[in-house]
């Protein structure tokens, strides 16, 4: 074209351009005006004509592109002409008429539009004359040939890009409707068919869609349109289903350690890459789209993908083959399906789900996914249940992959998942003894827990035999190498039908393999590296051992030192893990610290309307009372609310005599859980009804002793009436105090108060028995022969503990005596906060019985408290402080006068509250009257209560004991736990402030065997069977427990790590489980002659492997690990970013076991290596086929010992790190 060159290079004037443009248009219009087809003239349009039009039009477009608007808000003359002449429209119409060249013309038009949109300096799309032809053109393209596709998508993409630049266009484009055709927002319907395309086209289309969707984020109407009128969401969800169906039905699991799809794995699966692309796109759409669209897509994701596809895939039964809807694509599974097919498919599906979970980043999508997995049902079974069951599957691969999935679950730091898996079983606090509730928030301040974990180290792990001969190492190292290469061959011949996994790993491995080989070339065998590592390990060991001479470690002990020093690494890991987890958990709605949510908040849904009704009553009234009870036990702080509450309660009792309404309400107060506490205070005519209800509602779980007590109450209404009168005679504040005990008074009665209570013999017997059981508890797991002496001794200890809190309370008062009372309430708030840690006391003393029940300490305090209040009424506040500090003479005198030293007073002296903190009377418990001395008004009354209270405690303790003996190995876990029901009454709502919006009766089913839920059960069972598990399962299981222990929620933390916690009999603690494993390990070690040698070898292998894993570290091993390194460590530690990478680099043996932080590494080369080591036959003895089974067991046991020992260190480190974890206030 002659015009082009001058135009391009000399930039003619606007006028010249306009003239050129006009002349072009003249030429074009001449051609366009030619009649195209008529009845008479068959054909007038020649190829030349078409070509000319295309050329001229192209030139015109170029001109328009270059044209600048003369001024703001104006349009250029050429564009004006184009609009006025409706040029594009004419071109478009013409292109339709010229049938022969229609495709070419369309294509050119698309290109022209693309050019205009992309490069024009003026906004061309704002004009209907431009836009309408475009829309019509696009509509024409609905059924266009493939030739046009790329150009079309390009144009659409360009359109979307300009949309994203100028959101104004969006509305315009959205509302503009072409003169013909209904399609609104053509962009979408045109792009959607390309969503699932592969290659560049699909990418462009998806990009364009995303752009468009994100632009429409703010426009509700468009969002609505996309969600409701386009098929974007169904297409996306359906695409997922389609893509999923293309995935291999099963995976090649020939690799022993395989447990999840690593990046290396799935990158070699084109189908998976495609699926993940789609998933990623869905994820992105949810992320950028208008919420309506996101919600819609999530909905389809659930209904169109999770439920019909993932559910069946995950859930298919082992025996029935179902859900074959999507098996079309993988034609290979015909015959292999017959035998282990379904299980393999489950394994594959589990691995896929795991991978999907790890791929999704959008919370909404994740939410629906997790919700389905956690709460979804399939074929009448909760999905989660099936998954949990598979933890203990016989199939190693299924077990591993399931564990891996759960690791992913837990790794998400998702509150809902954790609630479903663990927390909802812990929140009711039924798993622990009532008294232990105040220990929930404890931390391992002085390292007791950690110490406990470390003492669980098996004896067999403490003997370190001399290292075996070097020859062995070499030999096995060689074997390792040969085995590896041999396996590579095998794998190379893998079946086409199934995907070979972890082949990529071998690439990694092969590079890792270089190092031994290279060492071999250099004549330094691998074991040499181990030895050369010695200095490094020593260095670390020295750090551990303080300034003990560096040369004190002999070379024989290198490995031992390795192991010792790994504790440091675990600490670092734990710190990083806990910190990350704590930060993530700030988003949680609740702290799960035993107070919030309150234990009553969560229990299984009530059975009937009745229970609901009672529950709500309970929630507003007696729930508060009982919660105050526990508060007393916990921090001995009397809140004003509590006082008010109690007086209200009292009034209620009084009124109950007059009005039926009052009767009813007060009767309802004594719901089953609290009945034995609040019983006497709520005596009324309706009591029978309530009792009936209680028995009925909990018929399957109420134990007999509980019912006995109920019967007892029924018989003793008269007594209760008396007691109520008694109550009313008391002063208000006194009543408040009594509230704690009065209910208990009636719960379990004994000879101490025959005048008031008819005793049933059985009741008496129970009480007696409980006394001895108490003392048994005081000596931990030891039998019952410790006498009462231990009881009194322990009681004394308790007394020493609580005064500190008082003392604190005294000290906590800050602003001098004058405003002391004014500040009281504030101070009490503060005290509550401060004194909680104080109530920690000697919790770490193993199994001290009084720790098991708060009631015990509450009671004596109560009695003495009254005394103190009276005796110290006249003393000045300052004196009280002095007393509180323990050196006031007055206090000392009292201390002598009383049976128990009363060094401390409490200064809660206001009229509204009653003293709670009182010295403990050291009376040997359970013997006779309580020795409360001094000015107690109604001494009898109090001592009675003390006694009965103690009986109650005794009873529950005895029940606890029976459970305990069961734990010690005698019985099965099936025992119905009366203690659960017994302690139930004293399991109060912890928080007075939190009133759940959906209160649920604590009656529930929780009065059955307390449980920590199927997940923990399954996990612990796996831990218990560690000796039988193979190495990889053990790594996964212990890694899962470790990961769980990262969680800072006190409920979970105390459950897993607090070794002093005492659980209900039917609940096993981690320590108990570990002890079992430890014992069986030791038993096994004794029965196998060369266990120590094998153990040594196992360790050495793992160390060796570790070295090979990290050649860089081996190199640096030669240099001394000096202060530089230390400083770097410190820096890492202090840096919030917590460089995990370099941490793990330095890790010694523990690295192998550190699943959390370097999961991938473990899955990859390390494990491969381990595998080869394992297969190379680590046991020196001849492996005849007869011995094979034994050897395998032994091998598992040996590795288990190593893992177990490391696991203990890890747990110890976690306990320690939790103690020092500083959680910033948020």
């Amino acid at each position: 074209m002659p015009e082009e060159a001058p135009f391009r290079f000399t930039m003619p004037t606007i006028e010249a351009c306009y003239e050129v443009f006009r002349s072009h248009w003249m030429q074009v219009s001449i051609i366009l005006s030619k009649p195209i087809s008529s009845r008479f003239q068959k054909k007038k349009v020649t190829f030349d004509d078409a070509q000319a039009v295309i050329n001229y039009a192209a030139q015109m477009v170029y001109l328009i592109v270059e044209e600048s608007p003369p001024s703001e808000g104006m349009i250029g003359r050429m564009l004006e002409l184009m609009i006025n002449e409706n040029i594009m429209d004419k071109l478009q119409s013409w292109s339709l008429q010229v049938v022969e060249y229609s495709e070419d013309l369309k294509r050119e038009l698309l290109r022209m539009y693309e050019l205009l949109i992309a490069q024009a300096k003026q906004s061309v799309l704002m004009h209907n004359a431009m836009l309408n032809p475009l829309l019509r053109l696009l509509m024409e393209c609905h059924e266009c040939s493939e030739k046009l596709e790329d150009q079309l998508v390009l144009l659409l993409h360009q359109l979307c890009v300009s949309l994203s630049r100028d959101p104004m266009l969006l509305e315009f484009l959205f509302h503009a409707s072409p003169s013909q055709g209904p399609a609104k927002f053509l962009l979408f319907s045109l792009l959607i068919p390309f969503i699932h395309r592969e290659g560049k086209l699909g990418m462009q289309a998806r990009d364009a869609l995303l752009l468009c969707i994100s632009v429409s984020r703010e426009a509700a109407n468009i969002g609505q349109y996309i969600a409701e009128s386009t098929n974007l969401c169904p297409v996306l969800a359906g695409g997922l289903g389609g893509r999923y169906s293309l995935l291999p039905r099963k995976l090649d699991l020939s690799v022993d350690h395989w447990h999840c799809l690593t990046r290396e794995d799935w990158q070699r699966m084109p189908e998976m890459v495609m699926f993940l692309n789609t998933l990623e796109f869905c994820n992105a759409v949810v992320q950028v789209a208008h919420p309506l669209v996101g919600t819609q897509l999530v909905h389809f994701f659930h209904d169109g993908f999770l439920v019909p596809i993932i559910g069946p895939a995950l859930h298919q039964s082992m025996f029935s083959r179902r859900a074959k809807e999507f098996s079309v694509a993988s034609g290979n599974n015909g015959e292999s399906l017959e035998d282990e097919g379904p299980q393999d498919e489950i394994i594959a599906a589990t691995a896929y789900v795991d991978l999907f979970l790890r791929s999704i980043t959008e919370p909404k999508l994740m939410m629906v996914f997790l919700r389905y997995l956690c709460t979804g049902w399939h074929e009448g079974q909760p999905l989660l249940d099936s998954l949990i069951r598979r933890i203990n599957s016989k199939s190693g691969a299924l077990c591993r992959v399931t564990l891996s999935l759960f690791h992913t679950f837990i790794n998400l730091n998702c509150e809902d998942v954790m609630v479903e898996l663990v927390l909802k079983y812990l929140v009711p606090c039924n798993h622990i003894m009532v008294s232990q509730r105040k220990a929930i928030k404890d931390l391992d301040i002085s390292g007791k827990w950690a110490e406990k974990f470390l003492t669980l180290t098996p004896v067999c792990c403490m003997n370190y035999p001399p290292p075996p001969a070097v020859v062995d190492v070499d030999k096995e190292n060689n074997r390792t190498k040969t085995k590896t290469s041999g396996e590579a061959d095998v794998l190379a011949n893998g079946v086409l039908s199934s995907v070979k996994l972890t082949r990529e790993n071998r690439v990694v491995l092969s590079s890792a393999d270089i190092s031994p080989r290279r060492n071999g070339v250099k004549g330094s065998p691998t074991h040499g590296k181990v030895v050369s590592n010695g200095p490094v390990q020593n260095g670390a060991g020295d750090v551990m051992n303080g300034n003990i001479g560096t040369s004190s470690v002999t070379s024989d002990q290198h490995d031992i030192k390795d192991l010792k020093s790994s504790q440091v690494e675990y600490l670092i890991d734990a710190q990083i893990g806990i910190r990350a987890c704590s930060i993530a958990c700030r988003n949680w709605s609740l702290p799960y610290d035993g107070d919030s949510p309150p234990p009553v908040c969560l229990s299984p849904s009530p059975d009937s309307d009745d229970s609901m009704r009672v529950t709500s009553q309970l929630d507003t009234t007696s729930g508060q009372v009982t919660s105050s009870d526990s508060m007393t036990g916990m921090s001995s702080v009397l809140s004003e609310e509590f006082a008010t509450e109690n007086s209200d309660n009292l009034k209620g009792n009084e009124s109950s005599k007059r009005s039926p309404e009052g009767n009813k309400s007060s009767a309802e107060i004594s719901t089953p859980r609290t009945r034995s506490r609040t019983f006497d205070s709520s005596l009324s005519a309706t009591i029978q009804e309530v009792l009936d209800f209680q028995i009925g509602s909990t018929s399957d779980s109420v134990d007999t002793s509980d019912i006995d007590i109920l019967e007892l109450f029924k018989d003793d209404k008269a007594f209760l009436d008396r007691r109520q009168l008694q109550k009313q005679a008391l002063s208000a504040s006194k009543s408040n105090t009594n509230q704690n005990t009065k209910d208990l008074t009636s719960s379990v009665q004994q000879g101490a108060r025959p005048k008031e209570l008819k005793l049933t013999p059985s009741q008496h017997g129970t009480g007696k028995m409980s006394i001895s059981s108490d003392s048994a508890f005081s000596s931990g797991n030891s039998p019952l022969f410790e006498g009462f002496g231990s009881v009194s001794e322990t009681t004394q200890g308790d007394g020493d503990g609580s005064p500190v809190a008082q003392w604190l309370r005294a000290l906590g008062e800050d602003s001098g005596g004058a405003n002391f009372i004014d500040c009281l309430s504030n101070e009490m708030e503060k005290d509550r906060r401060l004194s909680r840690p104080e109530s920690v006391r000697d919790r770490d003393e193993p199994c001290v019985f009084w720790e098991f029940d708060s009631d015990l300490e509450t009671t004596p305090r109560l009695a003495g408290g009254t005394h103190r209040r009276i005796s110290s009424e006249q003393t000045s506040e300052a004196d009280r402080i002095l007393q509180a500090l323990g050196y006031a003479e007055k206090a000392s005198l009292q201390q002598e006068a009383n049976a128990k030293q009363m060094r401390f007073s409490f200064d809660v002296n206001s009229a509204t509250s009653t003293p709670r903190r009182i010295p403990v009377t050291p009376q040997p418990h359970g013997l006779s009257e309580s020795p409360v001395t001094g000015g107690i008004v109604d001494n009898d009354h109090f001592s009675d209560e003390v006694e009965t209270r103690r009986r109650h405690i005794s009873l529950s303790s005895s029940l606890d004991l029976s459970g305990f003996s069961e734990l010690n190995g005698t019985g099965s876990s099936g025992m119905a736990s009366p203690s659960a029901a017994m302690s139930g009454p004293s399991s109060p709502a912890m928080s007075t402030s939190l009133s759940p919006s959906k209160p649920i009766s604590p009656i529930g089913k929780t009065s059955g065997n307390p449980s920590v839920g199927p997940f923990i059960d399954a996990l612990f069972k796996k831990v218990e069977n560690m000796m039988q598990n193979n190495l990889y399962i053990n790594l996964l299981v212990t890694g899962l427990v470790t990961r769980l222990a990262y969680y800072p929620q006190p409920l979970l933390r105390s459950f897993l790590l607090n070794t002093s916690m005492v659980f209900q009999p039917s609940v096993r603690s981690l320590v108990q489980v570990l002890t079992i494993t430890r014992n069986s390990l030791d038993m096994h070690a004794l029965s196998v002659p060369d266990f120590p040698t094998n153990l040594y070898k196992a360790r050495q292998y793992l160390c060796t492997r570790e070295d090979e894993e990290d050649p860089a570290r081996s190199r640096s091993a030669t240099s001394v690990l000096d202060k530089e390194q230390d400083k770097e460590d410190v820096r890492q530690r202090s840096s919030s970013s917590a460089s995990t990478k370099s941490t793990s680099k330095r890790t010694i043996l523990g690295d192998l076991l550190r699943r959390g932080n370097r999961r991938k590494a473990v899955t990859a080369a390390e494990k491969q290596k381990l595998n080869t080591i394992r297969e190379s036959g680590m046991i020196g003895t001849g492996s005849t086929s007869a011995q094979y089974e034994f050897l395998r067991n032994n091998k598992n046991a040996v590795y288990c010992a190593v893992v177990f020992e490391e696991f203990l260190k890890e747990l110890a480190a976690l306990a320690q790190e939790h103690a020092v974890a500083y959680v910033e206030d948020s």
Partner: protein
Amino acid sequence: MTRLTNMTSEVGKDKGDDENKGNTTQNNNHQPSPQQSPRRQPEQLILRRSFRKKKLPPVPKQDAASSPPPGSPPMFERAGISSPGERTPSVANSPNGVGAYGQLFLEYALMAEYNQLQKQRLPGVYVIPSAASPLHWFGVLFIRQGLYQEGVFKFDVHIPDNYPDGDCPRLVFHPPVFHPIVDFETGELDVQRAFKQWRRNVNHIWQVLLYARRIFYKIDTKAPLNPEAAVLYEEDNVLFKAKVADTIATCKSQLYDSPHSDDPHAIRFSKWEEEKHSKALKTIVTPKKSKEDSEGAKNAQTSGLSWVKPGTMEVFSKETH
């Protein structure tokens, strides 16, 4: 700012704005001098006694800022001694019986103690462990009312190396304070009377500090270490007050002196310098912005997730819009 807040544990939290105004101004005069800025990383609150890898948990930046005391808070700075004393203390025989871990347990017990101390936020009490030993802590105490009002007392805490199974920690004022139960020769506070027997897991170091603060508000004259002070307090209040004023003045006059210890963490006061301290001050008194994380910005893989409706335990119930 980072440095300052990291180095000092702002344990205290002022309770009332008004009552502290006077002291606050006074504190302003005591701003530390950064002239000997330490070369080492400030985060290195290292317990360097034997296990050099470990350090105390860093005092988070937000700590002070989250509870800004009214007015300007006191600031301290370590003496700028770059090479930490490589003391080689005798290795404590661990009572824990876990062999090589014993030392580790001591370290962690002390870290936990310090952690607890931080959480207590004792008003007017500021403590930092020494660089050389986790068993030696430096502190300073601001008395904000009462007889000892305006007192600024520096002290050292010495923890027995068999902690927590040993004796009470010792607390020594430098310079000695005129007080009935503070030895006027040695400056040592009679901690024993409050903790007749140190009980593991019951007693904590922060209680000692609380007690040390307490004695200046509630004066105890029984069995005095400083009989003169006790007698004066009982019998000649005017003279006692004069003596107290003396001791306060003495402490103040020595406030800017070099710390008695050459430990880099020893608390050191310096005059206020606008350009050096104002930024730190601003950070401290500015409440920490609570980072609002919108639902959309979250990454499901890294940020914690929760769809539990607040106040309930219902999972996956929160409305997402």
